[in-house]
């Protein structure tokens, strides 16, 4: 076992949080050096579910590898698929039909809401409040039902293929989504009443785990983690893909940099996603849901990089092609990996209970970190 920093000091206690621990929501292993209740050092040990997806993809064709990526960040699997499809489309210069673009964005935003819902419930549970988890799942279930109806799956949808989506949306899709929006809006006030406005919750979150804007950029934080520190990092705004530049939505920014800011970013982001869905749900253009593509996809020789905004931050897909049917090298720049690297920086000096809150607000999904 590697020596954790500071472990040699007299009076320090080293505890292993994970790989099996209720707070890590997966198989993350943290070696924590404690001085009493105060954290001296946090050392992540990864690899418990490293499946080497990058290596796997080297032997899969451009149609196949997309499905593996659903297993990276399983909470925004749809957005992962989207990123891969965009990269292949960029390489082959496939024009995606307008209908497919709108469907993709609708699915992306539904996924984002579902992911943030799960995060909200799980984070409240980390702080010791169990009830919000079930309330979050009430809404998340209805999104999963919509997904199931159209994609046939609830978690790893694998709905996006290069050139469009796999099949057309279910005839009932629009009604279901509208019903969900109505239900969601009638319930959203419960979130503020139950968690956001709670004095204990605010005391646990405010001025905890402060991450400055400079550090957020330097550590490569993206997504809500960076936006909580006031760093504009929404790929949908900065480098728009699909038709995001035609949509009316705001990039959510909070300037506190503490856990509460990160929390508020995600809460407000759900509202923005609702806004996007509302703009699109009645205006799904008619037409093909998939572009005509060749049976065997071959990317030209070269390098292709796409960035998309997942629920956790910036996902980069970097494909190096030699002109064959399989990628020569593929790299997924996962948001969770960089976001995790900041944990030691923000956790040092705070209490053990706060570490759990910080991990909650960083929204770590372990398969995304390990890949």
């Amino acid at each position, binding site marked *: 076992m590697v020596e954790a920093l500071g472990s040699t000091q007299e009076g320090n206690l080293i505890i292993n949080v994970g790989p099996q621990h209720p*707070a890590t929501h997966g198989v993350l292993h943290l070696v924590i050096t404690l001085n009493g209740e105060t954290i001296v050092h946090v050392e992540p040990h990864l690899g418990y579910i490293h499946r080497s997806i990058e290596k796997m993809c080297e032997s899969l064709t451009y149609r196949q590898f997309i499905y593996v990526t659903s297993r990276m960040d399983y909470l925004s699997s749809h957005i992962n698929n989207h990123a891969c499809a965009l990269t292949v489309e960029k390489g082959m210069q496939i024009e995606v039909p307008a209908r497919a673009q709108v469907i993709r964005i609708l699915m992306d935003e539904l996924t984002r809401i579902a992911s943030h819902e799960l995060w909200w419930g799980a984070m409240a549970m980390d702080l010791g409040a169990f009830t919000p988890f079930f309330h979050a799942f*009430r809404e998340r279930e209805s999104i999963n039902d919509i997904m199931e109806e159209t994609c046939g799956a609830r978690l790893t949808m694998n709905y996006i293929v290069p050139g469009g989506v796999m099949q057309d949306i279910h005839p009932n899709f629009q009604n279901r989504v509208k019903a969900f929006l109505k239900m969601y809006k009638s319930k959203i006030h419960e979130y503020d009443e139950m968690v956001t406005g709670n004095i*204990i919750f605010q005391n646990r979150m405010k001025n905890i785990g402060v991450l400055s804007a400079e550090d957020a950029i330097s550590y490569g934080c993206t997504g809500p983690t960076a936006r909580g520190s006031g760093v504009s990092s929404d790929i949908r705004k900065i480098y728009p893909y699909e038709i995001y530049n035609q949509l009316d939505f705001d990039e959510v920014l909070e300037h506190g940099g503490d856990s509460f800011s990160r929390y508020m970013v995600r809460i407000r982001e759900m509202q923005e996603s609702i806004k996007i869905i509302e703009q699109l749900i009645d205006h799904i253009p008619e037409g093909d849901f998939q572009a005509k593509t060749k049976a065997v996809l071959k990317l030209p020789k070269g390098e292709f990089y796409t960035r998309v905004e997942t629920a956790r931050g910036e996902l980069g897909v970097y494909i190096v092609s030699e002109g064959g049917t399989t990628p020569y090298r593929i790299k997924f720049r996962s948001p969770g990996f960089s976001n995790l690297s900041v944990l030691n920086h923000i956790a040092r000096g705070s209490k053990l209970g706060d570490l759990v809150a910080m991990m909650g607000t960083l929204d770590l999904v372990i398969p995304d970190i390990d890949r």
Partner: protein
Amino acid sequence: MWSLQKIANTIHEWLNTTFNSTIATTIEMVIAGVAVITLFALLGLVLVLMERRIAAWMQIRLGPNRVGPQGLLQSMADTIKLLVKEGLTPNGADKFLFNLAPFIAMIVAMLLMAPIAFAKDFQLWDLNIGVLYISSVSSIMVISILMAGWSSNNKYSLMGAMRSGAQIVSYELSAGLAILTIIVPIGSLQFSEIVQSQVNGWWIFKGHIPAIIAFVIFMIAVTAETNRAPFDLAEAESELTAGFHTEYSGMKFALFFLSEYVNVFIVCAVGATLFLGGWMPFHIGHWESFNHMMDYIPSSVWFFGKTFALIFLIMWFRWTFPRLRIDQLLNLEWKYLLPISMFNLLLMTALAILGWYF
């Protein structure tokens, strides 16, 4: 009218006429012991089920509803499961203390039942320092938790135990001061006299603002003292997996679990006795006919109704609030609750001297 008091008196008379007084007292003690153990088990079963159903109700789900009618036998099934489970003792543990700790927890919970007045003249031991007895015996609980945490030879357990030690010792102060606030106008620590003093109204109404403040402080402090959320730092499962009982399994774990629930019952019973009149029906001053009507409801119903209302309150806390951090927890006690309850005690003393309560 049927009452617990009559049953108790009948048994007492019959025993004394059949046997000589020594044997009769011995048999009475055995009966009392069996009754306490039965109540202990029964309370555990009922409260666990109650907690699960309340949690389910607050979390928009159904809760246990498969075993028996309406899931009533669920906690029975759980008990059987826990009984047949292997009670592991870790290799590195201090075996004697490790196995002793759950029993201390259980014995403390049982001892606390002695002075509780369950109904009119239905009490095991009406000693003249009843409230003092309760607050001092309940302090032994912390020893069992420290013992469990230390002997488990587990860092999580140790941290949980240390947290619990700091927490219980601090919150006992406020709980004690809140109790004292009510004791001042009564002038007695005896449970029967405390209940009798509320014959013309419960203390929460008679004692004006100081009594209400004391009640709120008492409820917060006992929630902390029984290690219940939002003060469940000793077993904070998202931080310390299960805190001091991480290494326990089977029936040894169940004893901790049961004693937690029985402690909740006891502190709520004490709260009900001090602030809500114990078994005393709802009386208003000199409204004789109203008071007389209220007396038709049996005193045991009043007692258990009040106690379970308070238990519901504590369960409500648990399923609503997030957990505090250890420094916030101690801040709350030492910087807010303790000064407030000290001031409150002075206020009540002044009221008692001036006779400004009903």
